[in-house]
């Protein structure tokens, strides 16, 4: 869930560099607008979305978790977008070019305004990117924009970004949360309160926000994409108990849910009137067990390896998740070009684990979110078979994530469900670099750090893949995270809801869905 941080973009993140080599051609070519699907939808209606937890904030500069991103993606547009094929496409920037390896020029869409009437222009882009880059901003994405040297408005609709060094993932970064544009006027007026009163250019406008109860958005009547959105209103309801969330879907109290937790997949598959579907494999989707190396006895790599060996991944996938996933041996999904095919599967080996522990008795506390109580009980029994006594401490997602980043845990059951940039830098730098935005272990080795930095500046995908393979190999030896399985990118909704597409990054696009009938 840490990783339930949204990053979108493409294998084509290399485009920046490739473009530079190609002498600065038109990147996405000011081609068709992403809306050109032909408006077949039906206007009107209210959609109720069931989420695992509430957004911690609606300010896109801060990681707002999986739930938060599902909401902010409806309020804000990104400078660039990414297609299902991973290609970077236009967003608020209609086109872009790269005159050289360290310069990116964005040509902005004309006539776009923020919900508060502020025009969207080059000055707004400068304000946004500088805000995140400000060392005092507290933004989660500071590291992602760190290679930027300066952002300048060369005319009202043109922005020039200058880099300190080549930075392959940049386009992917701008197609993700760091590229979400907020209204400078609203932010200047009340920077502290912006997280509760967000103003963007997106298809929906915030109407009301009641923490832990609901967040209501209404249609943006002046949305720049003609005819969109279809819905009049969207209500997001945090429902922390997964069974309740799914019951509400089956009874019609909610229309769509963010994610179907493993134990409820079969129930949803069998339910009448509900569509269950699996989208393209996520760029990153893993259920994993992070192990805090500062909390003894987890400072001992043998203990961490023993835990990883003790987990019966096959049983968890087949029996708990009803087959909706594949056992994992690394933190990146097989769909990514950075996936290391040479890493062996982690064998289920309780005896080996016991031997590694050398007769020690180990007691651990395992922090578990509601979504994975069943998975956690299997892990608990697995660990017991290896001589590790783990108690289950249940808590809500928000607390779990806070504890993760604060290193306030021994081991947890965590997940990352898409919401990552297609560029593998997102997830790999995130998990394994010392200052990575997903690193809840606070740990790295100099070698891993060096390889990750190098991969950021390399231009050739094959070279980068080699570097990432090595990172994954070294990380496997450190065993700071025990990958458990790559869950299916699943979602479920009422059959009255039309036009739902599950994106590779798992973020909902509610502008293009509509309710049939009433």
């Amino acid at each position, binding site marked *: 869930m840490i990783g339930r941080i949204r990053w979108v973009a493409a294998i084509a993140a290399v485009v920046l560099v490739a473009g530079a080599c190609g002498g600065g051609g038109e990147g996405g070519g000011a081609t068709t607008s992403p809306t050109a699907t032909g408006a077949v939808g039906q206007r009107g209606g209210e959609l109720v979305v069931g989420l695992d937890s509430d957004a911690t904030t609606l300010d896109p500069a801060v990681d707002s978790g999986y739930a938060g991103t599902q909401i902010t993606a409806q309020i804000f547009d990104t400078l660039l977008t990414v297609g299902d094929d991973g290609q970077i496409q236009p967003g608020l920037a209609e086109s872009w070019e790269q005159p050289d390896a360290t310069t990116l020029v964005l040509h902005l869409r004309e006539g776009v305004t923020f919900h508060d009437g502020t025009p969207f222009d080059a000055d707004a882009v400068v304000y946004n990117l500088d805000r995140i880059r400000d060392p005092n901003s507290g933004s989660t994405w500071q590291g992602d924009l760190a290679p930027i040297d300066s952002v300048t408005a060369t005319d009202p609709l043109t922005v020039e970004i200058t880099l300190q060094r080549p930075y392959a993932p940049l386009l992917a970064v701008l197609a993700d949360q760091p590229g979400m544009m907020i209204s400078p006027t609203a932010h200047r007026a009340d920077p502290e309160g912006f997280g509760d009163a967000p103003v963007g250019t997106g298809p929906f406008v915030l109407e009301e926000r009641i923490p832990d109860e609901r967040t209501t958005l209404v249609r943006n009547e002046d949305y720049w994409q003609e005819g969109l959105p279809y819905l009049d209103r969207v209500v997001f309801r945090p429902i922390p108990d997964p069974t309740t969330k799914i019951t509400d879907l089956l009874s019609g109290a909610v229309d769509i849910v963010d994610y179907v937790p493993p134990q409820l997949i079969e*129930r949803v598959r069998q339910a009448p009137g509900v569509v269950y579907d699996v989208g393209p494999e996520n760029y990153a989707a893993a259920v994993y067990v992070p192990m805090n190396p500062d909390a003894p006895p987890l400072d001992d790599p043998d203990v961490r390896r023993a835990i990883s060996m003790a987990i019966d991944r096959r049983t968890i996938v087949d029996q708990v998740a009803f087959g909706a996933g594949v056992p994992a041996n690394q933190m990146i999904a097989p769909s990514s070009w950075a996936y290391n095919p040479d890493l062996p599967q982690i064998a289920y080996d309780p005896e080996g684990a016991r031997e590694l522990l050398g007769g020690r008795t180990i007691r651990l506390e395992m922090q578990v979110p509601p979504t994975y109580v069943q998975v956690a009980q299997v892990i608990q029994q697995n660990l017991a078979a290896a001589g590790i006594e783990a108690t*289950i401490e249940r808590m809500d997602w928000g607390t779990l994530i806070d504890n993760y980043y604060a290193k306030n845990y021994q081991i947890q059951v965590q997940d990352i469900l898409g919401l990552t940039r297609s560029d593998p830098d997102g997830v790999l730098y995130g998990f394994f670099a010392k200052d990575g935005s997903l690193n809840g272990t606070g740990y790295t080795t100099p070698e891993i750090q060096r390889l990750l930095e190098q991969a950021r500046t390399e231009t050739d995908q094959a070279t980068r893949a080699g570097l990432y393979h090595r990172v994954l190999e070294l990380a496997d030896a450190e065993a700071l995270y025990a990958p458990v399985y790559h869950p299916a990118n699943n979602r479920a909704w009422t059959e009255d809801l039309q036009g739902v597409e599950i994106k590779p990054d798992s973020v909902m696009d509610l502008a293009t869905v509509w309710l049939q009938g009433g």
Partner: protein
Amino acid sequence: MAGLAEVPVGAAVRSSGGALRTVEWLAAGAFGLIVLLAILGPLLAPYPPEEQRFADGVLLGPGSPGHLLGTDQLARDLLSRLLVGTRVSLGVALAAVVLGLGLGLLIGGIAGMRGGWVDAVLMRAMDALLAFPALVLALVIAAALGPSLRTTVLAISIVMAPGFARLVRSLTLRERARDYVAAARASGASAGRIARVHILPNIWAPLGAQAALAFGHAIPAEAALSFLGLGVQLPDPSWGNMISEGYAYLSLSPWGVVLPSIMIVCTVASISILADGVRRALEV
């Protein structure tokens, strides 16, 4: 958890006196059987209750080979979980009632024997506990001490203590007012001796009736707490957390919810019928 300990559920008016009726004998039989299951449960259970036997299959229905009542979502034997869960749930309720009764005896006894400001302070303290709705008090205690089986017992017993304390106090006052107690006091018997010899033996019957009622309330209290994840912790089975877990799988296999629910209802109903009968028979 309606009417915890305070309300005489079977309020006294019935054709009074006499032996138990048929339905009450039936209730006694049912309750006896449940208690027997709780005592023998772990011996009768074919498997350890937390053992996941995935090779046998998940969510098997009753009558499956090797699993009389089938298995749950983690391929744990339902019969074993139900039997051990019966012991856990009854055990928690019993421990809570005993502890609550003990607290009540201590506090109510001291208040009744000492009187004066001690009485006033102790009874105000009991009123203060009554000012918390039962589940709220239990949740605060779980928040303070961390949810566990022990916390559950403690929480429920603290919820029950004021009811017992008030009863003990009023019974003590009643007994103290009797002539023989006054005589004992005049002959120089210590307060402790009076309490032990003269008062305690005379208040057991009404206390017992109250304890039976309290037990009938402790069962759903534990179930509710465990259902919310604040009571008995997984993978230990209790009726409440079996329902909570099984609810996710309801349409695939209802047994994980239905069986513990039936146990709860049978237990509470048989206790409440039985408690009525006993009260009437004793003509309290």
